[in-house]
């Protein structure tokens, strides 16, 4: 941070000022769309976008122009989302909402007949939009901390060790949560597809 005493209206500063409100015009829609696809409530998504712009404003001197503004704003947003998931993950109230897991396997570890996966009867590429819709719906049904664990996996380019440190869990615990979330997402999408066919 440089101190510029006595020059309250330097050219650089006033340019940043006009820039940031044009950024709000230009990028709010994109940032909100990205965020809403990843958190449950619209109001939470709006708050995250807002604190992203505030952080961008406060850190404007660190934006050196080497990446695009959009990229820079998204990198701030991803950090804010990571904070959000970390909090959601560690929230003891949310942890207590954990549901009873359904049993998909027999005692010998084989699939129970009604849970044995069969291929989805669809052209996954052609119906990508439909699948995305089902996925969005099914993500809302995940217990909040499973969702936080799975969202962390796809948010940034950081390895599992770093995520586990952030969440305060072991790598084994982490992949098991990813696996449980995946089992549940797969069940849910399968049900959605079947509903459509009946």
């Amino acid at each position: 941070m440089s101190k510029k005493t006595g020059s309250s209206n330097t050219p650089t500063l006033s340019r940043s000022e006009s820039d940031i409100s044009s950024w709000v015009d230009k990028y709010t829609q994109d940032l909100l769309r990205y965020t809403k696809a990843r958190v449950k409530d619209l109001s939470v998504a709006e708050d995250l976008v807002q604190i992203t712009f505030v952080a961008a404003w406060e850190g404007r001197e660190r934006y050196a122009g080497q990446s695009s503004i959009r990229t820079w704003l998204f990198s701030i947003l991803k950090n804010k989302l990571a904070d959000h998931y970390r909090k959601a993950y560690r929230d003891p109230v949310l942890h207590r909402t954990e549901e009873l897991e359904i049993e998909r396997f027999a005692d010998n570890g084989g699939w129970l007949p009604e849970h044995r996966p069969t291929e989805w009867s669809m052209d996954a590429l052609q119906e990508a939009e439909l699948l995305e819709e089902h996925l969005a719906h099914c993500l809302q049904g995940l217990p909040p901390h499973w969702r936080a664990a799975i969202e962390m996996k796809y948010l940034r380019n950081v390895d599992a060790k770093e995520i586990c440190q952030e969440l305060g869990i072991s790598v084994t615990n982490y992949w098991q949560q990813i696996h449980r979330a995946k089992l549940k997402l797969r069940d849910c999408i399968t049900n959605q597809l079947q509903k459509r066919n009946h």
Partner: protein
Amino acid sequence: MGIIHTLLLSCKKAVALLDQSTVVPLSPIERLQLRVHMGICKGCGAYKHQSELIDHLLENRSRAEAFDTKALEERINLRLPG
């Protein structure tokens, strides 16, 4: 009998290993066990395809409805000087 038991993996363990492998590398013996199991188990094969498809969808999520952001933009601008 010993070798067979080392190579045989239950479906429960096999799908867990599949998802585990997207987070941490498996040991050589686990990779071998998984390969043997996947070679003969259709159910786990379907799980693998679907799990990979879900990964792909999660990585490329872009769709979300458009929002009316006017009120939000005003709120943000109030928080920013200028």
